């Protein structure tokens, strides 16, 4: 029997259309699995990235490739060539995250798997030079694992087939060195077999006919070698390594040695995410609520200690009771930011403990983090104790409220830049969804709010704004006779275009059954409707979409606001609603008739100054 131990065997998986496969998978997620694998997807898809100042294709799927497109092609050219092309923004960060998941999944084959995306781009001829997206692949060190799957070739075939069923086109190389496996996974003479196996010791022969690009070279030395006519790996065999290194640098010589197994190349395997858990076994089953709470009290400090040592904080935690009848009862708590304070976590759980059902008794309690995020060690505050603790305390309050009411229910008011009073503020949830791993966590990222200043010189706003403007009846003495109006207001707006009713400030108005005689008035402040809001129903996905239902298609006219004071010294904010606007877009941009004459202006009360 051979010494299996000594022989290293490596699988390199290449996912040539990973980015677009992922898109297609997402799109078909509604449909019933399994996804059709071998059938080529009909729609040409591509991802687009901004590369060297211009939009270029980062990845293309089979249909797009057959249509003549390739990564690196400028988007404009691609559109000219293939008008039916669908494009999406490239997101290599998410791609790599998804690839990491696949690498973890591949643990079913080998405990040593790694993401391979570090290869320099432009390694394969189907691209347009160095201007394309990253290359996606996996490494698996399967030394000694093959027999579990009926042989190493079968293992690789199974891997490729399963990836295929999941919607990822993949092909693999299997060899004694990572370099050789990488090369044969991607660079083939003619064969289209999903798995290419290099027999042990056969690397030299297998690589000889392949392009030197199969050595994962940097672009510059590879080009030089090609120019010298040394285009295949076999061409390099007779060269003195020193002559080669003098001209092409150390890279090619090193990669060649690694591929041929004359120099070692390690694979750094991916590590699983930290899932921390602590458990407590009871000698006798427990069932009382106090006992369960006591168990939690013992588990929480232990878990938090481990979280601290790992430098992470929990975002979601499960507290699970294993009952003697073999069933479980579980509650979950979430936090707004990474947390590892036992007291705080305790408070979050305490409100949920009632939901736990111990059944006929609980024999084991388990506390585990379901989602965790990095969390810097906290300085035990010396001196200025207040600030940090206040922040933390507010955070805890928010967490407790959010756990009780639901995460979207806890909001804060933020200013919004809008001239329309009722749109000048907005509510934002304070608890965000779990952040992507590694992203900085900061509750005060409300950049919009921070950037919104007041607006210089604008007339003051009332302290209290009615939830809805309320119509009021007005009394006007004589139209057109400005001198009869209350002092303070300039003549109302009138212009060459009929943009509203004649300018008059009322002498009195009736609101909620009470008559107010206007003594003084200031105004008008004219505010136009926001014409663009009628467009967003079909416009871009903008978060500034009006709340509630779809945008109203017809835009009301502008409003003239007046601050008025009545005979009792109370001050109100009234506005007059003018007719439909001249400047309404989309068709109404070049208006025809002015608003129908005779339509009386409508007056509304919108706010109170006192």
């Amino acid at each position: 029997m051979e010494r299996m131990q000594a022989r290293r065997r490596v699988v390199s998986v290449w996912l040539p259309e990973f980015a677009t496969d992922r898109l297609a998978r997402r799109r078909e997620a509604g449909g019933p699995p399994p996804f059709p694998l071998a059938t080529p997807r009909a729609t040409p898809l591509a991802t687009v990235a901004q590369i060297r100042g211009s939009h270029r294709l980062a990845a293309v799927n089979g249909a797009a490739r057959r249509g003549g497109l390739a990564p690196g092609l400028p988007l404009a050219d691609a559109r000219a060539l293939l008008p039916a092309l669908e494009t999406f923004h490239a997101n290599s960060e998410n791609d790599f995250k998804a690839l990491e998941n696949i690498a973890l999944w591949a643990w079913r084959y080998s405990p040593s798997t790694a993401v391979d995306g570090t290869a320099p781009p432009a390694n394969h001829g189907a691209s347009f030079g160095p201007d394309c997206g990253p290359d996606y692949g996996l490494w698996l060190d399967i030394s000694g694992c093959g027999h579990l799957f009926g042989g190493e070739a079968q293992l690789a075939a199974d891997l490729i087939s399963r990836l295929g069923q999941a919607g990822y086109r993949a092909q693999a190389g299997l060899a004694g060195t990572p370099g050789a496996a990488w090369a044969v996974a991607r660079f083939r003479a003619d064969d289209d077999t999903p798995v290419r196996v290099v027999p042990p010791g056969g690397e030299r022969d297998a690589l000889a006919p392949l392009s030197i690009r199969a050595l994962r070279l940097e672009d510059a030395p590879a080009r030089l070698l090609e120019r010298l006519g040394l285009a295949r790996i076999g061409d390099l065999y007779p060269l003195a390594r020193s002559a080669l290194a003098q001209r092409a640098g150390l890279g090619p010589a090193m990669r060649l040695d690694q591929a041929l197994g004359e120099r070692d190349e390690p694979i750094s395997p991916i590590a699983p995410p930290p899932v921390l858990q602590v458990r407590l076994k009871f000698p006798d089953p427990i069932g009382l609520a106090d006992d369960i709470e006591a168990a939690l009290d013992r588990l929480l400090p232990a878990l938090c200690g481990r979280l601290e040592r790992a430098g992470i904080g929990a975002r979601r935690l499960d507290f699970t009771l294993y009952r003697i009848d073999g069933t479980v009862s579980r509650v979950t708590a979430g936090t707004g930011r990474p947390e590892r304070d036992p007291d705080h976590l305790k408070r979050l759980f305490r409100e949920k403990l009632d939901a736990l059902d111990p059944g006929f008794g609980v024999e084991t309690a388990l506390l585990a983090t379901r989602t965790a995020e990095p969390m810097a060690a906290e300085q035990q505050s010396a001196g200025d104790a207040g600030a940090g603790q206040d922040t933390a305390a507010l955070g805890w309050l928010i967490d407790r409220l959010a756990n009780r009411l639901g995460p979207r229910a806890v909001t804060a008011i933020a200013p919004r830049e809008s001239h329309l009073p009722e749109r000048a503020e907005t509510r934002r949830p304070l608890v965000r969804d779990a952040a992507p791993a590694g992203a900085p966590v900061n509750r005060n990222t409300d950049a919009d709010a921070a950037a919104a200043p007041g607006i210089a010189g604008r007339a003051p706003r009332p302290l209290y704004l009615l939830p809805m403007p309320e119509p009021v009846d007005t009394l006007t003495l004589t139209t057109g006779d400005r001198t009869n109006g209350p002092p303070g207001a300039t003549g109302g707006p009138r212009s060459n275009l009929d943009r509203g009713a004649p300018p008059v400030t009322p002498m009195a108005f009736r609101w909620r059954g009470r008559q107010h005689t206007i003594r003084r008035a200031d105004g008008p402040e004219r505010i136009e409707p926001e014409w663009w809001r009628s467009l967003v129903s079909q416009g871009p996905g903008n978060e500034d979409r009006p709340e509630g239902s779809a945008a109203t298609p017809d835009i009301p006219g502008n409003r003239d606001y007046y601050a008025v004071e009545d005979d009792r010294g109370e001050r109100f904010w009234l506005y007059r609603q003018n007719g439909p606007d001249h400047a309404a877009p989309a068709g109404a941009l070049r208006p025809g008739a002015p608003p129908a004459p005779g339509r009386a202006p409508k007056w509304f009360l919108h706010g109170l100054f006192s």
Partner: protein
Amino acid sequence: MSDYLNSPLRRPPASPPYAELQVMSNFSFLEGASHPEELVLQSAALGQHAIAITDRNGVSGLVRGHTAAKEHRHRFIPAARIDLTGPDFQGAEDNDKGRSETHSGSGISILCYPRDRAAYGRLVRLLTLGKRRSPKGQCALSPGDLTGPDFQRGAGQILIVLPFIQLNNKFNQFLINLKKATKAEIYLAASILHRGGDRSRLEKLADLAARAGTPLVAVNDVEMHTPRRRVLADVLACIRSGCSVFEAGFRLKANAERHLKSPADMAELFADFPDAVARTVEIADACRFSLDELRYEYPVDPVPEGSTPQEELERLTKQGAKERYPSGVPAKVQAQIDHELALIGDLSFAPYFLTVHDIVRFARGRGILCQGRGSAANSAVCYVLGITAVDPARLDLLFERFISAERGEPPDIDVDFENGRREEVIQYIYEKYGRDRAAMTGTVITYRTRGAVRDAGKALGLAEDTIRSLQVAVWRLTREDEVTDEQLREHGLDPGDPMVRLVLTLAADLRGFPRHLSQHSGGMMMTRGRLDEIAPIHNAAMAGRTVIEWDKNDLDALGILKVDILALGMLSCVQRAFGLIKSFHGREVTLATVPPEDPTVYDMLSDADSIGVFQVESRAQMSMLPRLKPRNFYDLVIEVAIVRPGPIQGDMVHPYLHRRDGKEAVDFPSGELRDVLGKTLGVPLFQEQAMKIAIVAAGFTPAEADQLRRAMATFRNHGTIHALREKFLNGMTARGYEPDFALRCFKQIEGFADYGFPESHAASFALIVYVSSWLKRHYPAAFACALLNSQPMGFYAPAQIIRDAAEHGVVVRPVDVNLSDWDCTLEPGPASEPALRLGFRKVKGLREDDMHRLALHRGNGYADAAAVMRRALIGKPALEKLARADAFQSLGLSRRPALWAVAGLPDRPPAPLFLAAPDAELGREDDRGNAPRLPLMSPGQEVAEDYRALRLSLKAHPAGILRPKLTAKRYEPCAVLLERAHDRMARIAGLVTARQRPGTAKGVMFITVEDETATANLIVWPHVFEKFRRATLGSRLLGVTGWVQREGKVIHLLADHLEDLAPVLLTLDRPGGFAGDSPAAAETGRLFKAREFQ
């Protein structure tokens, strides 16, 4: 805008008169939302007393406003808004602005109205001062400048100070101080824009005005002529700050009150302050300065003691005539000269002629080739002065096209100079007149359709993809066209989407809006007095240049002198060829001594053998030449003029050819038109003819005819073309002409607006056509050599020029380290003819000074690459490029061994200390003599590498190498077209050298392909184009099946089926199929880049 043009408005001023004094036009660049013309017209229609335009720190919109006001008899006040900066006002709130709305500075703004010419001059000088202090596009002026001695402390100016939005003591103090320090009349602006609190603010302002002694004046802070422009104003605000409307927030205005209002409205708004309204009229009436006063300020060149410029001009003319006509001046010419001199005298244009004459004399003295073009060639005086080169004896001149007493405007003299040496002429002018009196003309860069769609789309937050699709959808549109729903759908857009429609509407409004100022390529203006008292001067991006704010049309409209110092690549080429002929053949030739009317030259042109020749080398010209068969100089004039959008749009080309071939009778629509159209067989081909038709047949006055031409050439978006069109068509039909003929004539004038050639201009160009043809015919090697050294220019890539030279028997030799110079050179050839040696300039990426050094240190030649590095201190990257260009052949090193040797050298040349070391020490021991046996390159690889390094190959044509593969696909050589009969099928393949889709061709695409045997011209109709879109647009090696179209010697292939042969092309440098691609191989397809023309 037209609403007001046609409406019977002009309300009777029942209310007190009002003049609008604060108006920002779109020449405040992305700020105002209306054109100056629109503002002026609206102001007139509203019955305002007058309108001023006060653009931010500039006067570039004034001329347009002035012209429009003149046309509509409205009072126009030239003025400017000055944004003050400086330490005193740091941190002051911006004046009447939301945040981020100023381009620069954040201080106080002042509107400045000069009362007279002198005050205007000082205002403009103040702006110049601010601009020359600051980077391009900015202007830095402090309050101290306003009260400084240079500005005469504001004497003669009326200033309106714009208050801060929140009044404070700082502002009050400023106002009081300014009042004390200046001699100007000072007013305080008040506007009621319905921002809330207007009343109390107004009272505070009135208070302040009384305290400071600066009377209150009503303004409306106008930024649009009608509130309908609100959406566009919002979009402009978004463009300015690079955000979408959804993110814009307070960068948008709360309302749209900043539009022009009627005097009645203003009176009502300011009912409590009627004085403030009345003062607007006082101010307007106090400003009596008009831009018309800027005319006729010619610089005067020194003339001999005791004589006037006119006498000096007459003397020079007489002297020049003697030189031009040694055997006596023909009577016709003498009569013309006398006529012209009299007119020049009447209009006092003599100084101008002397100025141009001086510039030309300077250029000639320096040996810089130059020639006048354009309408100046209508002048016999210009000819004898040496400004133009077309003999008036050979042409009918229309001197009135050049100068007319009625127009009373100075003529336009454009002179072409060798492009390499034009800068010398420009600097001479600067030196002679000084920067105070000479500057480059500005150019206003305006929005065009695609840019307008892009910016409007971004402002509405459209996705990048959608914007691109929209841009493509509008790509082919001219101004009248509307995008149809069908077109939108075709580009994957939803025609029902209001967003898409709105973007298109906005883009249509935005089109023609100025974006920024730039400099004209060659226009220079000079004046007698200080130029910076006419318009502000600012620094150009290019060092050593200053630019005036007004563009060519503005100067035209004001009748200000300018000379176009243009650069013409062909003149450089001709000059170079003359030099080569002198040094190699020992023959001295000049423009004047090229033998005229050489029949062999016309033979050559009639065969469409015109690659490299000036003007007539384009695809369209080449298919015209064999039809026109030029036999004399005047035929060339027609040839140059006929292949232009003017005659093509006017549908004049075919009638002319038919008549010339005798297939159609030459008749004239009327006797009066016989005189006009006689020499072009009854078909109008030249601009003058179109204008004369307007005069003779449509009853225009000459000035009106010229106005028509200008109306279409310049302010075409806002002019009064429709009225002129009606007048033209009605005039002609009333005189009994066919409406159809009238329409064609009008269309032709329309075409001339953009690309019109007057006869005189065509004649100037025809002369260069003739000279370059003569060079090509008799000195093909020198001509090709000069062409290659003058690149980039012309229609053809070097590969085609070299191929053409070789076909004319020129031996072309490769670039070589031991034999080439930077430029291409002539060296002794096999017979008496010289051979053409390619220069290092053809190798991509080499630097000129490196290669000069290489040639300098060459001595008896370099023995190896190391010697080049050591002796000429050439770095490794440059040596690599030389090796890749296969330039070591004379050393016995082919490309790969040379590259191996170079790659083994150190990165940098050795330090001087080691220069004495023998060459061998640069290379390593193991490299000398025993380089590895590198694989030989296949012919295909050699050619591909040649293209990579040089964009051409002397070794073989790529198609020749691929021939077996093309034959296997049943493609024939291009040469078969020469033999095949009309309407027969042919199937050819070739490299695409040019793709052209002229606007006049209704979507037809013209493609030129070539293989080792011949060049073929393809015509692709739109339906075929759509069917084979990818192959048509993207292919480098194109296979075509189609029908042969022969018309005389002109052969086209009417494409029926197109195939992208990229897979075949890719095999060029990949002989066997070996495992794996390489990027280098993928690039092969891109090496053969076609030239794209539109």
